[in-house]
């Protein structure tokens, strides 16, 4: 596919790959600075009275006793702040028909999930604020709760929003070709219903904000653990009726985010409202139970899917009916329709599948809201597809590698449009499958598996192909009406010392963004990475941009830094030419020195150039003004997204007596385009895989039939620990994208996309001789023993 950057001269090796991240050195020495680590004078603390019910009318709220507790500064409910905070609605124009009611920072008249914030208390200490919560008296009228997906879908069940005629928030249908005809003429059909358990984000640093409003200047400074400070600057500006230039959002170290810290939460908005009310800095740090109750949840899906194939194993069509429960509101501003939308579009996406019908139903419930999280929708699409492919392989007695090789899209087909509507520039499925088969020594594993089965040991091998959505382009949130930028900006200057300082709008939450941006700048300028300092996460000190989400940091942020570096380099070469009375086109910069290309000899160092340009411009020609800093912005071009691809495999053992799964090995072969930093790419993949493994084996937000969250501690919500996780072997293919100058595609979602799918496939492979099939995640011992008929 001819992209806008097809003929660009690109570096494929980046300087500084062998250096540790400077952030890592800092954190290893205990020098991190998270929101809760910053000291403030005159700080107040906010805590929330939360709904004990999943669904209840608020008849009366009595805060008189709470208000009179010594140390309490302010107490307010939703109706007390309607004059300073306007409501919001989680809708986007590109999901026509999506509906969701207005929301305020606190429940207004009715509580719609267990844990929804109802009353805010501001006090001199968090402990006093929590003491005051116990003095609040609310009269409730409990209402029937909508909890499960079937419960929400039921025509005669209770409604989450009485003003709507049903619990449907959004319905979408996709059609490609003629799936009905394909199914009518298929040799074989496989079908199943998968249920994916609701998860949550569980960042180790909980949601955190200190809102500091200065009434004398009408200026708000928010120290906020968010991925997306510019989006939050816009939100605070509009909903609190402030001037944008008077709103500063600073994101210091962010202790994990994974998409969870992209969204607008009532508690953070209430903290801003509190600071405006009292004119003091107000801190909200979620405690762990509050995190479980009020962070976004994700991926509660029930998917009925069918696949039609020829007897040779060619996939003809899929028909998918995906229902997802999103809680009572579509989350603002990115909506809760995105996850299902991407899941539906990713069904069958790696394969030559001409016919497809998909239906998505997004349902309201009385549970915590769900929204975008790492690998948005991918695990659902990949797990559904790969489960059906394995069912078909078993039915046809084909090897899982063989059926996948037969069906993946091939080099002669690109660019192509998938049945779900995605445009793929170029992928490398065949090469990835070949590499994986060798990497895992597949035939030896099959031999071992067969031998152990003779001895009553049940091991399984699972394989899964995936594509990953990255680098969202301009036709995304902005088109839907959300003020979320798709472009990024970079300011870059030469310090007088010859060092480079850059300020860039992509942000760091541990991925290594700052290191990668320094690498790109160092590589394209021709300087040592240790001579580049990077500023991120402050709306007042960096150009405006989209920040870091959807694996856009490397591809879009990196391209922004690249074009800025090329522009600054051109300026520096021009200055060198003026100083030396030479020709700029004959010079280059290597290792921090301007060299003569012909002789390869240094002609002037950057420190010397900086000294002359900043302090002795009198020695330069009259009316010459050295341009020592540049700002460049970069808008992603070409297709609406980039796509990476890869394949994963799992080898595991199922104890058929206890139902416990032991992960033995895990492999990933991935193609993220040009690799900027191999170690950081591999660690993104490993971290992502473990998120997928947690979801498929352990993690589930369990609600009682009344809608009470029953897994609200880290002892009840089981996330992966070191002794449960395998080593993860990684190999790469490199197919650059011509849609960005840098050629990097992004890698943040890849690990999570398919890790769960390959574990499900491996468990079902292990249990195949026992005629047991798992189809509900997480794959708990109880579910496995039930499938085996043992309990």
């Amino acid at each position, binding site marked *: 596919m001819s992209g806008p950057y097809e003929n660009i001269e690109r570096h494929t090796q980046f300087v500084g790959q062998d250096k540790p991240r400077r952030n*890592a050195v800092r954190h290893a020495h*205990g020098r991190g600075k998270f929101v809760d680590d910053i000291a403030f004078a005159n700080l107040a603390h906010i805590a929330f009275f939360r709904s004990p019910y999943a669904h209840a009318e608020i008849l009366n709220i009595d805060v008189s006793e709470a208000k009179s507790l010594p140390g309490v500064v302010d107490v307010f409910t939703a109706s007390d702040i309607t004059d300073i905070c306007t409501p919001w609605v989680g809708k986007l124009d590109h999901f026509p028909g999506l509906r969701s009611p207005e929301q305020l920072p606190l429940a207004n008249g009715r509580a719609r999930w267990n844990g929804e914030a109802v009353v805010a208390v501001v006090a001199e200490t968090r402990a006093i604020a929590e003491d005051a919560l116990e003095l609040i008296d609310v009269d409730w009228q409990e209402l029937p709760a909508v909890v499960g997906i079937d419960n929400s879908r039921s025509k005669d069940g209770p409604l989450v929003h009485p003003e709507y005629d049903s619990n449907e928030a959004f319905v979408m249908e996709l059609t490609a070709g003629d799936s009905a005809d394909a199914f009518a003429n298929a040799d074989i059909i496989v079908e199943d219903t998968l249920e994916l358990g609701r998860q949550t984000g569980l960042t180790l640093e909980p949601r955190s904000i200190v809102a500091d409003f200065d009434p004398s200047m009408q200026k708000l400074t928010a120290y906020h653990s968010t991925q997306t400070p510019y989006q939050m600057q816009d939100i605070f500006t509009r909903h609190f009726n402030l001037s944008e230039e008077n709103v500063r959002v600073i994101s210091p170290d962010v202790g*994990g985010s994974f998409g969870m810290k992209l969204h607008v939460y009532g508690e953070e908005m209430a903290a801003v409202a509190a600071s405006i009310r009292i004119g003091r800095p107000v801190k909200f740090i979620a405690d762990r139970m509050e995190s479980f109750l009020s962070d976004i949840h994700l991926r509660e899906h029930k998917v009925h899917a069918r696949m039609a194939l020829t007897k040779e194993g060619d996939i003809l069509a899929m028909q998918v009916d995906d229902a997802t429960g999103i809680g009572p509101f579509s989350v603002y501003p990115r909506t809760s329709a995105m996850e299902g939308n991407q899941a539906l579009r990713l069904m069958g996406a790696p394969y030559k599948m001409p016919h497809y019908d998909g239906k998505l139903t997004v349902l309201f419930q009385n549970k915590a809201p769900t929204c975008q999280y790492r690998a948005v929708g991918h695990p659902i699409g990949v797990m559904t597809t790969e489960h059906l492919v394995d069912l078909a392989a078993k039915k046809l007695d084909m090897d899982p590698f063989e059926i996948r090789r037969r069906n993946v899209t091939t080099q002669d087909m690109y660019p192509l449009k998938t049945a779900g509507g995605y445009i793929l520039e170029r992928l490398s499925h065949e090469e990835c499958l070949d590499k994986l088969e060798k990497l895992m020594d597949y035939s030896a594993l099959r031999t071992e598996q067969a031998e152990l089965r003779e001895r009553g040991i049940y091991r399984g091998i699972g394989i899964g192909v995936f594509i990953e959505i990255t680098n969202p382009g301009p036709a995304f949130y902005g088109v839907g009406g959300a003020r979320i930028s798709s472009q990024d900006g970079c300011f870059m200057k030469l310090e007088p010392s010859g060092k480079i300082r850059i300020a860039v709008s992509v942000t760091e939450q541990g991925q*290594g963004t700052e290191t990668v941006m320094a690498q790109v700048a160092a590589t394209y300028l021709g300087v040592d990475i240790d001579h580049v300092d990077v500023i991120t996460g402050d709306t007042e000190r960096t150009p405006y941009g989209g920040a870091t989400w959807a694996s856009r940091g490397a591809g879009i942020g990196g391209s922004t830094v690249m074009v800025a570096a090329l522009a600054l380099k051109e300026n520096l070469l021009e200055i060198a030419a003026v100083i030396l009375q030479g020709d700029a086109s004959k010079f280059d910069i290597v290792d921090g020195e301007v060299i003569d290309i012909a002789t390869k000899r240094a002609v002037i160092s950057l420190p010397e150039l900086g000294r002359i340009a900043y302090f002795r411009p009198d020695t330069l020609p009259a009316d010459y003004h050295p341009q020592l800093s540049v700002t460049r912005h970069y808008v992603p071009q070409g297709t609406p997204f980039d796509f990476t691809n890869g394949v994963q495999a799992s080898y595991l053992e199922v104890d058929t007596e206890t139902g416990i799964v032991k992960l033995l090995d895990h492999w990933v072969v991935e193609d993220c385009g040009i690799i900027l930093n191999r170690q950081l790419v591999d660690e993104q993949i490993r*971290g992502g895989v473990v998120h997928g493994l947690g979801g498929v084996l352990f993690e589930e937000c369990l609600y009682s039939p009344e809608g009470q969250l029953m897994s609200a501690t*880290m*002892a009840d919500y089981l*996330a992966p620990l*070191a002794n449960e*996780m395998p080593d993860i072997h990684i190999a790469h293919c490199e197919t650059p994208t011509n849609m960005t100058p840098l050629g990097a595609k992004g890698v943040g979602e890849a690990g999570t996309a398919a890790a769960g799918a390959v574990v499900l496939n491996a468990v079902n492979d292990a249990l195949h001789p026992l005629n047991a099939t798992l189809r509900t995640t997480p794959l708990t011992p109880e579910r496995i023993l039930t499938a085996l008929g043992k309990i």
Partner: protein
Amino acid sequence: MDPRCALSFKLNGRQVEQDVSPRTSLADMLRNQMGLTATHIGCEQGSCGACNVMVDGKTVRSCLIFAIQLEGAEVETSQGFDDDPLMEALRDNFAKRNALQCGFCTGGMLLAARDLINMTPRPDRNEIREHISGNFCRCTGYEAIVDAIWKTAHEMPSLEGKK
């Protein structure tokens, strides 16, 4: 307002005095009264390990112990160990191997690693995985942490011949 109690203990090698409310946890005192913010609070329920400190040589969840229980104790936090070659080697290897991403779990993880190597100078990978399974990391998937601890343990010259 809460009553206050006088407290005297040794913190990272120095004798210190504090006035503390009886309901204040050690983690809150370290962070809020003493400015030692590298002891992170991830759960306040004893699950996550981010707030680990050493009390009289034993690993303790500082969120689960009241500060007033520390009278006369010796407390070491992840911000101590400045002259400790093992801790310095661990910090160096964690950074080099990218055994941390967001950095929130790192202080507790380093203490767990140091504790392990002091007890088992040449641990194998499984022993490392078992020992750090009281500490959650949500970013790395643990493998890089295991690598960094293994490398430190197996390359520390001062540990030669201990096992």
